[in-house]
């Protein structure tokens, strides 16, 4: 059942440009990213490795590494420009509103701390203060949290509540034997279980925005399917907006409402799932979809997009796809195409749809 997404924009990224400084030069990772997220939807961000999807996510969360520089742009989240916030304010935002899940749960979980410690600290950072002031989590059947009459809560009581919330979160991600899991260390669990733990850490905080960065990439296909199923069922429970970052078109087809395609630091096409697969507009998207081998079809040549991913230290001018584009003409190297709507809800950044094609 498709959830009707409201038209309120939860997140709006305008013309975001980010550079990384490396020994070899400045890498222009993001070249003016435009993105809009609606409340309550599941948005898929796809693209090849190195196209800037993770960097976009890290910019939203304020987790860019030290050698990065935000050149320009705006990231409007619930009205505030995140880029203008101090690091302390961003930390607050991360604690209360934005949660991220990452790719490899083995390296992303602290090996010397138990699952319980890492889970409860996640919840503590979000709800700890409220619990201290008397808030209690909603129990099943009681949709809103309640407030105890006595106001301040002691530390023991708080620990107990956090523990219970953690157990509850583990149950919600369908992990067996949650009590035992709380005492385990990450290396004692399987890959799929670790990924569920990470998801539990995120969803226990009820974030407004949940970013899942390549969470299925490191998993077997069967486990992948389970995780995606979990995401789908959780979507009903959570009120969060979810961004699924992946390079796998199959994954986005499974769970997402809308998809954004990125190439070399630009968003080149945004559409609903059905629209994108039925009528891909950008030449890159078209190339991608043609490249998917169809098992049930007859024998055919394996197609690919010709050329290679550009060097981002010396990227191609204007439209970064133009060296590989079968339809490119001289305008493409002179003027960067903007992301514009070509039909309701379907945006493309390509001159093919906005300019008269000059003689090549």
């Amino acid at each position, binding site marked *: 059942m498709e959830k009707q997404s409201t038209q309120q924009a939860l997140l709006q990224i305008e013309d975001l440009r980010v550079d990384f400084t490396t020994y070899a030069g400045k890498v222009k990772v993001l070249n003016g990213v435009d993105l809009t997220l609606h409340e309550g939807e599941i948005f898929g961000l796809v693209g090849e490795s190195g196209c800037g999807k993770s960097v976009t996510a890290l910019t939203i969360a304020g987790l860019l590494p030290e050698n990065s520089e935000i050149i320009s742009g705006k990231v409007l989240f619930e009205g505030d420009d995140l880029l203008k916030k101090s690091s302390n304010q961003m*930390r607050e935002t*991360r604690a209360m509103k934005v949660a991220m899940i*990452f790719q490899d749960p083995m390296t992303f979980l602290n090996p010397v701390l138990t699952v319980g410690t890492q889970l409860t600290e996640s919840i503590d950072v979000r709800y700890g203060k409220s619990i201290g002031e008397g808030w209690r989590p909603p129990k099943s059947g009681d949709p809103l949290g309640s407030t105890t009459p006595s106001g301040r809560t002691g530390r023991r009581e708080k620990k107990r509540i956090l523990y219970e919330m953690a157990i509850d979160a583990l149950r919600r991600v369908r992990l067996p034997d949650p009590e035992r899991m709380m005492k385990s260390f990450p290396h004692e669990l399987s890959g799929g279980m670790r990924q569920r733990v990470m998801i539990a850490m995120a969803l226990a905080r009820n974030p407004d925005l949940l970013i899942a960065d390549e969470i299925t990439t490191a998993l077997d296909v069967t486990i992948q399917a389970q995780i995606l199923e979990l995401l789908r069922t959780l979507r009903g429970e959570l009120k969060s907006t979810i961004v699924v970052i992946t390079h796998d078109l199959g994954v986005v087809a499974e769970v997402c409402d809308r998809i954004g395609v990125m190439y070399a630091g630009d968003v080149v096409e945004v559409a609903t799932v059905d629209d994108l697969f039925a009528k891909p507009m950008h030449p890159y998207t078209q190339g991608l979809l043609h490249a998917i081998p169809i098992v049930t079809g007859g024998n055919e040549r394996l197609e690919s997009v010709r050329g290679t991913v550009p060097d981002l230290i010396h990227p191609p001018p204007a439209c970064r796809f133009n060296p590989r584009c079968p339809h490119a003409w001289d305008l493409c190297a002179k003027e960067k195409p903007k992301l514009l709507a070509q039909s309701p809800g379907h945006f493309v950044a390509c001159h093919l749809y906005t300019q008269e094609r000059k003689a090549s």
Partner: protein
Amino acid sequence: MRTIEYVIRRLILMVFVLFGVSLVVFYLTHGVPSAWDPVTAFINPKMSAAQIQAIRVQHGFNQPLYIQYFYWLRDALQGNWGHTGNEALGQPVTYIFSLRFPYTVELAVAATILTVGIGIPLGIVSALKNNKLPDHVSRIVALTGYSTPAYWFGFVLQLVFFYYFAIWGLPNLPSHGALAQTLDGAVPRTTGIPILDGLLGGNLAYAWDAFLHVILPAFTLAFISLGYLARIVRASMLEVLRQDYIILARSKGLRERVVIYRHALRNALIPAATLTGLFLAGLLGGAIITEFIFAWPGVGQLSLVAVFAGDANFVAYYTLVIALIIIVANLVVDVLYVFLDPRIKY
């Protein structure tokens, strides 16, 4: 439990290594002809040649080397390590050693506390402010300490804090020995460690005096060693801070201090902990130069005297005990790793 199996395996290995060590030690102290005549430890100048010869036969010194080794081993395992050289005639080696050992322990523990107390924070600060001024400053301090001979630094400390302070009229720190002469014997000897004995015996002045005496030598040792520890801590901190789980911890919105203390340090300090254990073990062997400079009545200083006096028995005993301490310390540290790092299972 597999850990117990591991420990047992290591213990067996330890026996073999000790055996090898004992062979080397025996050869060095008894076998090399020009070095020491083992008989000297058992004779005094007044004995006649016949008596000396009799002692030779009694201890088997006229036998071929490998037979001597078995005599020696038999004696050793029975606890008879012979007597020290001529000066302390009649004193069994084990007795002398146990008399001096607590002083070395006091110095070793004090030096370790100082080294860890200064070295670890220095390393952490270095890592957090990587490549900025505090990092460079701490690097210079660390490397200078590492490059300094103990006798020179100890001497400089004595010069300043004992000699010149006295001349300038400032309260000065003592520079020799572990205790003021006048206080000797003021407190019953329970552990042999001056500070502890003072506290246990309720004599605070005694303990305080012992404390004052240990400051300069401990600081000398600490200054030399903390550089290395600080560098190790810095390196492992830097590596930990680049790990993915730190990114996740930050993404949870945790305060930076929590990220550092709860997530980073717990991982980064593991190598430092093992290093500290080995450091302490090494110090228990007696910091020879420092004890010499400060006239500290420890085991190291005694070994120096023994080497120069040709006291084969003491040197053999001492070397073996040190080797034992170090080997055991290695084992303890390795086992400790299991508790520090939950990923390790033997």
